Structures are given as structure tokens and as C-alpha cells.
């Protein structure tokens, strides 16, 4: 996906800030009415003090027709389960979807998915049972959380009548914390310094991870999973609680 700078828009609705995901899941399991969502929440979520190295993680990446979940659709989803020790590429999954909104020429250029490719692809509704059962119990890892979180929430709301909330670890945000804690000083700007890029590719380079061709859902998911492993290896302790990372 594309990164368009830090999120300053604070768009339509302010998302609920959830601290205790474990309690939230337990509560939602009782509250939601659709059976798919009941099952999803019933799987529960690890407590916030669980060490990150014990947490089952799921790298997820969406390729979309644009950036606005109201007017754009999902064309593909990539999933890769992993832990801090190992990324299970052998269990990676990818779906092509028929978006509810037309592919744009721009989006075709970006992710190389064409009209004919998605012509016979399923709708998100068709894969939701499988997608949700895979996501259940996992902490989702993305690079730039606003895409996956908002597209899935709205996509589910449209199809099942209720939205979905889940904890996310955003590798972009972790990178921003490490490199953009304070804005550049006047002095630095005067010397021509520019802020470090925290796009996926540039972030990966800092940890000597190899370049991958971007905008392929599974590849981007693997790339984020590798990046999180690298970030934690370099900057954190594997025993750090998951609550330090998720939001």
C-alpha cells in the first residue's frame, strides 16, 4: 500500500480507543449478533501483559482501489501467520476479490491487478468465514494501520451489519516512534536534513532486509512480518508486553 505521510486528517469518526483487548473481545462475544463475529470474538485475545515473543501474530496486507474505504474497494488480501521466531510463509494465504467499486487506472498500475483478473473473483462476503477464522486469536500486524483496519471494519459492516475491531501492531508507527519522536530542529532543516523515510521499503533497508517488489499482498505481508522481527530484535526485548506494541 501507499503511505501518504502521517495521518493528520482525523477523518470522519474518531475510533474508540481500546486498552484492554482481552476484555473487549470477551464483551463483544456476548454483544454481537452475527454468528461469524461471535465466533471471531469467542476465540479471545491474549492479555496485554503477554510477552510479545509468545503472541500468535498475523501479518496482513490489503491491495485496494484507493485510500478511502467509503469509495474504494479491496482487490486482494494477503495473510501470513508468524511469531517472533518464525514467519510461516508456508501457510500464507492470498485472495483476489471483486471490489465493489471500479478499479481505477492508477490502482491497476500500482498493484498490477486488472479488470479481467477480478472479473470472476469472489466478493469479500464469500471469504469472510475463512478470513475471520484465520484472524481469530491473532494480533494483526500491518504497515500503516489505517488501510486494513478501516477497510475491513467497513467491509464487514456492509456485509454483516456490524463492524469489527481488533488489535493491530503497526510497523510504520513503530518506525515513526523510533525515528520521528521529535520534529527536525530548525538547525537540521537549515542544514537541508529531511526526515527519515519510514515507508516499508526504506524501513526494511535500515535493518538490512532485502528489497521486494511491492504491492503484492502476500509479499507485503511477509515484508511487514520480517520488519517487525527486525524491529524487535534491534530495538526491543522479546519479553516486552504486547501492550507496548498494539493499539
Amino acid at each position: 500500500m501507499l503511505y501518504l505521510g502521517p495521518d493528520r486528517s482525523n477523518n470522519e469518526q474518531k475510533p474508540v480507543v481500546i486498552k484492554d483487548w482481552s476484555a473487549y473481545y470477551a464483551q463483544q462475544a456476548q454483544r454481537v449478533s452475527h454468528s461469524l463475529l461471535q465466533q471471531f470474538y469467542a476465540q479471545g485475545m491474549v492479555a496485554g501483559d503477554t510477552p510479545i515473543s509468545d503472541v500468535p501474530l498475523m501479518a496482513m496486507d490489503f491491495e485496494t482501489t484507493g485510500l478511502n474505504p467509503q469509495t474504494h474497494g479491496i482487490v486482494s488480501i494477503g495473510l501470513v501467520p508468524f511469531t517472533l521466531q518464525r514467519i510461516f510463509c508456508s501457510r500464507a494465504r492470498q485472495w483476489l476479490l471483486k471490489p465493489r467499486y471500479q478499479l481505477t487506472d492508477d490502482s491497476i498500475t500500482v498493484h498490477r491487478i486488472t479488470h479481467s483478473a477480478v472479473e470472476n473473483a469472489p466478493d469479500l462476503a464469500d471469504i469472510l468465514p475463512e478470513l475471520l477464522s484465520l484472524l481469530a486469536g491473532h494480533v494483526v500486524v500491518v504497515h500503516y494501520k489505517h488501510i486494513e483496519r478501516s477497510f475491513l471494519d467497513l467491509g464487514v459492516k456492509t456485509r454483516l451489519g456490524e463492524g469489527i475491531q481488533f488489535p493491530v501492531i503497526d510497523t510504520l508507527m513503530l518506525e515513526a516512534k523510533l525515528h520521528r519522536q521529535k520534529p527536525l530542529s530548525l538547525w537540521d532543516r537549515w542544514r537541508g536534513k529531511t526526515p527519515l523515510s519510514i515507508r516499508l521499503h526504506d524501513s526494511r533497508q535500515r535493518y538490512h532486509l532485502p528489497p521486494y517488489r511491492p504491492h503484492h499482498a502476500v509479499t507485503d505481508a511477509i515484508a511487514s512480518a520480517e520488519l517487525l522481527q527486525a524491529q524487535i530484535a534491534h530495538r526491543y526485548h522479546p519479553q516486552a508486553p504486547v501492550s507496548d506494541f498494539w493499539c
Partner: protein
Amino acid sequence: MEIEQIEILDFLKRHSPFQELPAEQIEQVAISIDVGYFKAGTHILSFNEPLDSLHLIRSGAVETFRRNGELYNRLSEGGIFGEQGLLRGGKVRFPATALEDTLIYFIPQTIFQQLFDDNDEFADYVEVGDSERRKSNKATQTSQVDLLGATVETLIQREPVCIGSEASSWQAAQLMTEQNVSSLLILHNSEHAESPRDEVLVGTLAGIVTDKDIRMRLVAENGSLETPVSDIMSTVPATIEHKQYIFEAMMLMLRHNLHHLPVVKKQRPIGVIAISDIIRFESQNSLFIVSQIFRQHTIAELQSLVPDVHACFVRMVNEDANSQMIGSAMAAIGRSFKQRLLELAEEQLGPPPVPYCFLALGSMARDEQLVFTDQDNALVLDNRFDPALHDEYFRQLAQFVSDGLAACGYTYCTGNIMATNAQWRQPLSVWQHYFRSWIEQPSPERLLQSSIFFDIDGVWGETHWAKQLRQLVSQLARQRPLFLASMTRNALTRTPPLGFFKDFVMEQDGKQNNRLGIKRRGTAPFVDLIRIHALSIGSTENSTFGRIQDLIAAGTLPKGRAEDLRDAFEVIVMTRIRHQANALRQGEAPDNNVLPEQLSDFERKHLKEAFQVLSNAQKFLKFHFKA
């Protein structure tokens, strides 16, 4: 369906041993891979922990270690590790640490085992340490060789024509005429069997009779037609085993100037090959060059054959000849140059005042000569040699040969180990004294220059003196631990590198170099090592392979070790040979400096294993001879 792990697949398609796999197998590997990131300095594998996957380096660099903490290998992108552990019980043998930030692809044990079992090339790549595999690899190579790899039996055109040893010369001549053959094999006959021991001999070869024997030993001598054929035959003729290479038959015939060579199988003759059979078989080759050498009359004419010698060398490499074939062909050519030069020298200087033996030393004596080589030679003179009267003749003779050899591409020996040096132009008794003093009062310093004298071969003249000297050495050396220890100390001054990392040669201590002196770091210490073992068991063999054969027979080395040495030596020598052939193909002067980037992954891996064998053997040598 298109697979989703496209980056993994693309990576596999760029690296051995995966890129060589059939498309569906690569895809199968690609979808089974899991991934892990290791920060520089972190442990990837610890000794003896359970191992469930082959490790492939996607990016970064990794070091593996022996149990004692010694560096075992350094690997970069595309490198694999963990294979030894997987093949031997599924536990880590060589602990691994990330040298740089590293991304590892894990290939599950089941997939690895399947590839290893189904795919010989893959197995060879990951397991070059296993001598069985290396051997099978060599066997398939040999079968591709049309000319040089063919065995003697393929030349046999008919059953041998034989007669019992009791037959008369007349019967023999009749049979030869009837069968239209120019040679006849004479067999031990049952009627002559007087003891069970003779019984065993029945049907085995007693001798050979040729047209020439009948002419010279019967007709010219005015002998009776009833003369037993056993009286005119050549007894105990040279023979060759049916499974030996045609090439070896050629060398045997050249060495002994034979025109007919009986081929035996389980000691029974199964045919005869004539020199014409070989010539028909091998038209433009080393044999042809040898025969050309003897037709030239001046040094300039001899010099004109040098391009043919190089072409012959390259041709043998192209045809996948092994190092023994190439080494002995080049030695035979070198020997022929010497012999022809000596003939020419004698024509010019007149007959020698006392008998002499011209010696070849070093690689020529070992039958391991290549194209880019020093001349190392010496003269052994009759004990009646009187310097005042005779030395001028031999000085001139030596000068003539030495200059001639230099003109033909055998550069002067920088250590001045040549017959032109009066020290190495001495009577047999002095040579015997040299050897005694080297062996009986050894010191590493004294032996530094003289190890080359323990590879000697008579090329011309009284060649049995060379044999005598070899036997003297064989008797003396094995009882002299101090001598063997001194030789060992010298042999251990040159060690092999550890392996390769990216485009560098990596040393045991982790330092990196740009190029590999393949002779100094490989073949030379190897030859030294084998020579010492051979001396310690009194072997009179000259070639490294012959010596290894003797070591196997003597059982001095731990089981299987000698075979490993043989395979490792072949790998190193062939690297050197291919390097020199490449230079010749490109019109450059061959040398001994191999650049790592010129080596394929496969060659690097084989070389690394071979260096390991050499390095271990050096440790064993040091311990064994208490150096």
C-alpha cells in the same frame, strides 16, 4: 495456480542447488519455506539442538563453527547450512551465528530429504563430503568420456590366438599364418604341471611370440623348426588388465617400446592390442605429439611443437579426462622432450665418456606434470666418473638439455635444481651419500630444498640407478622418525585456506584474500603430505595416487581416510588444471593464481571440502610423526 510466495520462488531460481531443480520441484520448495530474521551477532543454531530444517541465507552473512569454537565456514546470500546435521541424526553439528543482519529461509527436513534422495545433483551439492557420492559423481563423468575414459577391452577385436608352451616354432608359425596375426600368445600347458602350484598357472600367459622373434631368434640364428616355441618367445611380457584405460596401455607401450600388449582378465589372456589399434583410436593426441617429438632434429623444431602440447592439454580437459590421465600425458611429453634432447646432445657431443642416468624430479617424476612447470632435473654418473676428464662433457650435455627445455616452455628452475648445477651432477656413490645424509642427519633447514629429490625417475640412460636410489630411500626413511618429523615440519608450513566468502578466499583465522595460490595452498602441501606417509611405509611409488594406493594397502591411515585423500586431491588438482586450461583457451599464460569469482558455487563447495580433508590430514600428520 500461481504460487503466492513469488519473492521466495524468484530467489530460489537464482541460486544453486535450487535453480537446477525442475520447475515443479522449485515451486514445491518455495511454498514450504518459512522465514526468520537474525540480528547481527545472535545465535542461529546451537550445538546438538534438534534441527528441523535446512537453512538458506536470503540476505546477510553467517559464520559456522566447530565444537571447539574454530571457524568452520563463512557464508553469504545463497549459502546453505545445517545440511550435515540433517543428514546425521537431525541435530546441529556446526553452531551458527549471524555475522550481519540476516534473513534465513528454513526448508523443512522432509522436503530436504526428498530432494536429497531424488536428485543426485542436489545431493552432490549439499553433501560433497561423502566419498560415496563423490565417487558416483566421478563414475558418471567417466562414462561421458569417449576417448580417454574407454577401457582397453573395447579395443579388442578378436579372441587371442594362443598356443601351448610345448608347441614347436613351426606349429606356432603355421598357426600365425593361418590366423593372419603378427603375434601369438604362449600359454602354460597342463602337461607341464608338476605341482599344485603349477596347476594354478595352467592357461595363464607364459610369453609372446611375434613375427620379429621368429625372424631374429629362429631364422637368423638358423634354428630348427622343431625348436620349442618357449625358447624363442619373450617371457613374462608386460600385460594390461582389461578394465584399465586405453590411455594406460598407451603409456605402458610407450615406456617399454612395445608393439603388442596382451590384455588379461583374471590372469587369463583375452586379447592382444597393437600400437596401431591405439593410433587408429586416438589420432591427434599426446601419443601423436610424443612420436612427433622424436622426429624433430633441432631445438627450434622441438619448440614448434609447444602449441600442440598446449592444444593437447586443453583437449584432454575438454574431454573430462581425470588428473591422472592429464598429469601422466604431460609427463610423458616432458620426458620425451628430455629424451630427444639427450639424443640430440649425444649426436652433437659424441657418446658419453662414462654411463649416466638423466633424472626427472618433482612433478614429472610423479607423472603429475601440467603445462606451466619448472624443469627440475639432475644427472647421476657412473662411479668411475673423473671430474677432470669427464665433467666438461656432462656440463655441456646438461646445458644443452636445460636450454632446450627452456626453449620448449619448461622454465629454468629458480632453486637451481638442474643438472647444470655441479652439485646435482654427481656419481651414484655421491648421490647415495646425499640421500644417506639427508635421511640420517636430518634437519628441517637441510631438507627444505631436498624434498623434491624424493620424487625421482630415470628418464634416459642407466635408469635402473634411479630405481636403486628409490629403493635406498625406501629402506632408510621408514626407520628414521627424526627424518620423517623434519619432513613433516616442512610440509606443514603451507596450509590450505578455509574456504570462500563472497569473492574472497577465506583463511582459517577469518582473514580474506583476493586470490588462491592453488599450488602453494593446495597441490604442493598435499603432495608433501602423501610423500611423507609413503616414505614412512617404504613405498617406492612415485605418483601421489600410487602412493595413496600403497597407503590403502598398508592400512596405515584410519579407515576411509586414504580414499578421502584421493578424492580431495583430485578436486584440487583438477581446479588447477581447469584454471590453466582456461588461460590457454584465452591465449593467456597459465599460472597458479585462481580468482574466487572464476569458480562456480559447485567448485567452491567441492574445494572447501577438499581443503578440509587436507587440513585434517595435516593435523593427523603432525600428530603421527610428532613434528
